[in-house]
């Protein structure tokens, strides 16, 4: 995915509207779509009940805001599982807060006044991280969806096939005839859209990394 991209989005949350606008002016220079919010609450309203960003994005979040602070917003988003990367904007005296913010894995912080290049680099990196994350999530969901169409028996057979067991042993384990196993296996391959046991195993792992343990 080329960056910046039209499908991405940068949210700026700062109680200072002038600063928000200046950031938009800066980010648009590089072609980033930007949305501004003057409070944490208005941002939460905007994303509604989304548990996940719908498109690659990141948050430029002011740590210090009058009502809900940046850190509090971070906490709420984490609880919701809304895991868009966050770039905290800090003033000189906010270092202890910044340290706390850094405990979050997906976070970075930039200090006011900004170095424009630093802001742009951090945004690009964050959005890319978010895109990777969403991509991974999409593929997982696709795998799950493919597997969800199998009947119970087909799931049992598919699981054993993915573990690399021959039909004979599967038949013995499930107490059915080898021929029946063969038929189920064909259905599984068709429904899941795979052509080999290896591909089936990969599908299982994509849906659930611990599936074959």
């Amino acid at each position, binding site marked *: 995915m080329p960056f910046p991209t039209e499908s991405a989005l940068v949210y700026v949350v700062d109680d200072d509207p002038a600063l928000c606008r*200046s950031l938009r*002016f*800066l980010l648009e220079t590089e072609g980033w779509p930007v949305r501004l919010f003057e409070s944490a609450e208005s941002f939460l309203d905007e994303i509604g009940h989304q548990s996940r960003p719908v498109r690659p994005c990141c948050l430029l979040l002011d740590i210090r805001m009058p009502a809900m602070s940046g850190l509090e917003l971070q906490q709420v988003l984490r609880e919701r599982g809304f895991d868009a990367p966050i770039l905290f904007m800090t*003033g000189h005296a906010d270092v202890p807060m910044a340290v706390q913010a850094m405990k979050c894995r997906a976070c970075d912080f930039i200090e*006011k006044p*900004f170095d*424009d290049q630093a802001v742009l680099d951090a945004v690009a990196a964050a959005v890319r991280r978010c895109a990777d994350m969403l991509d991974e999530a999409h593929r997982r969901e696709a795998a799950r969806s493919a597997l969800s169409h199998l009947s119970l028996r087909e799931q049992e057979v598919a699981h054993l096939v993915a573990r690399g067991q021959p039909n004979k042993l599967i038949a013995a384990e499930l107490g059915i005839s080898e021929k029946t196993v063969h038929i189920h296996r064909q259905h599984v391959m068709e429904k899941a859209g795979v052509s080999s046991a290896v591909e089936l195993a990969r599908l299982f792992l994509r849906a659930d990394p611990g599936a074959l343990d």
Partner: protein
Amino acid sequence: MRFGDERGPSAWFAWRRLAYCLLLSLGLALRFSPTYAEAGGARQDVAIGVLAYQGELAAALDWAPLTRFLNDHVPGYRFHLEHFDADSLREAIRDRHVDLVVTNPGHYVVLENEFGLSRIATLDSPQALSPDRGTGSALIVRSDRSDLQTLGDLRGKRLAAMAPDAFGGYLLVVREMLAQGIDAESTLKEIHFLGVPMMRTVTAVQRGEADVGVVRSCFIEQAAARGVLRLEDFRVLGDRRGSDAGVAAFPCGLTTPLYPDWPIAVTRTIGHGLSKQVAQALLAMPADTGMAWTVPADYQSVHALYRELRTGPYAHLRDITLAGLLRRFWPALLVLALVLAAWGVQTVRVEHLVQRRTAELRASLRARDAAEARVRGHQEQMEHLSRLSILGELSGSLAHEINQPLTTIGNYARSLLRRHADGRLSEAAVVEACSEIDSEAERAGDVMRRIRDFARKRSAVREPVDMPKLVDSARKLIEGMLLQAPPIVCESSLPPGCEVLADASQLQQVLLNLMKNAIDAGRDLPPERQTIVIRLEVVDKRLVVQLIDQGCGLSAERQAHLFEPFFTTKPDGLGLGLPICKTIVEAHGGRLWAQSNVPSGMCFSFSLPCHAVSD
């Protein structure tokens, strides 16, 4: 009698002299009463001073023929004897109490040199080989001391002698020993000087109190003749008569060469005529009187002896030998050594004490320094904390609020540059950005205005303030805060009862701030330049407070920015002190300004309207 005139002798000495004198007078009176009877009262007195080496009575008897003969043969004069030891004879000559002097050759050359005596005759004793070879010394030992044969055997022995300056009784032997390469003082173990009479020396040898004794030649022979001792009890050590043909004919035992016999000399009290008369009489004195005189002998050999021994008239030549000094002064030296040792011990002890005390002092100084450093540390910490609290207070409003427009302005400016570089800069974007920059700059200016309002808002309290009292309390406060506050002198020419209407705590803040600045200005200067003067006066119905330091001052350029917020000349300063002071003073209807002080430093002044000046 002259004894009454004697100056200085001890009472004991005077008594002894008196006793001998009475005895002598009695003896003379008994023996020579006819002469004295004849003498009547018309004859002129002539005193003959005699060295009484055997005691005064013996001397009186020995020299009686002399006075008798002279009284008989020199008309018009009455000669009488005065007896002295060597020192008192010298004093008598010096004091012109004697006219004629009879003494041993050694003593004579000393006196000749000192008082200009001149000999008129030399004793011609029966044993003399010639006038200049009449007397010598004998070293006597007990005849049973077979271990003592030559002078070389005297090493480590005890010697008895008469006196250090005795001629026949000491010096002749010393010279002889020296001639044989023996230094008497360092070779002998002890030398006992027994004084007169010479018999004491003989007795000491006889009793074994001394190993060897020095006596005048013929002394023991004459004593033996008088039956006083037995000649066979003694032996003369190194008798020269066996080795020196020139003295073989000498009738007595002899250790040393022979020297001229005793002279008789005239002092300066006596006229030439009388000298001649006496000399003539003496030369004519027949041997049967028991005493004969001859022409004055050559006393060069005696001079030679003194020169060689570097004593008597040649004492200045004496070179002091260490061994001799040691022997002579060992008790004194021992005492000296002990004193030195004690002094040394004391010195070491004092040194030790000094070192210990110094170390203690250092330790206590170190402890004090550490305490001071601790206090300073606390103080710095407190100052730091107070700065932080100001910063904390400010960062909530000021720092954040300045940071926001700054960031915004920066964002627009850089974005414009980026767009321009990419060739995508639209006119609309320029207008948008610049109007945003303009309003943000306005916003930053508002922040500064709010700082000034900050002080104004608080200046609600207005009450009469006694400025000298306020200055004093501020001075005490700052002296309490700083460990080494420099002197702060307050000179007030305010009329009594001069007051201003003000918020005392805010004015105190101003004073503290200005004092702190003044102290900082003088911090690294010599103490005499650290003094700070605070001057209070009334000018045009306004109370003026001046704080004057003697620091390095500030350039005109710096002075121009002094009251701008965040302008500071201190490495750790915030640059808010003076702006706040200025707003406080101005809020009180006053003015705060700074000017250079002559010759050095700065003068910060503020004026406030006077509330009341009671007349």
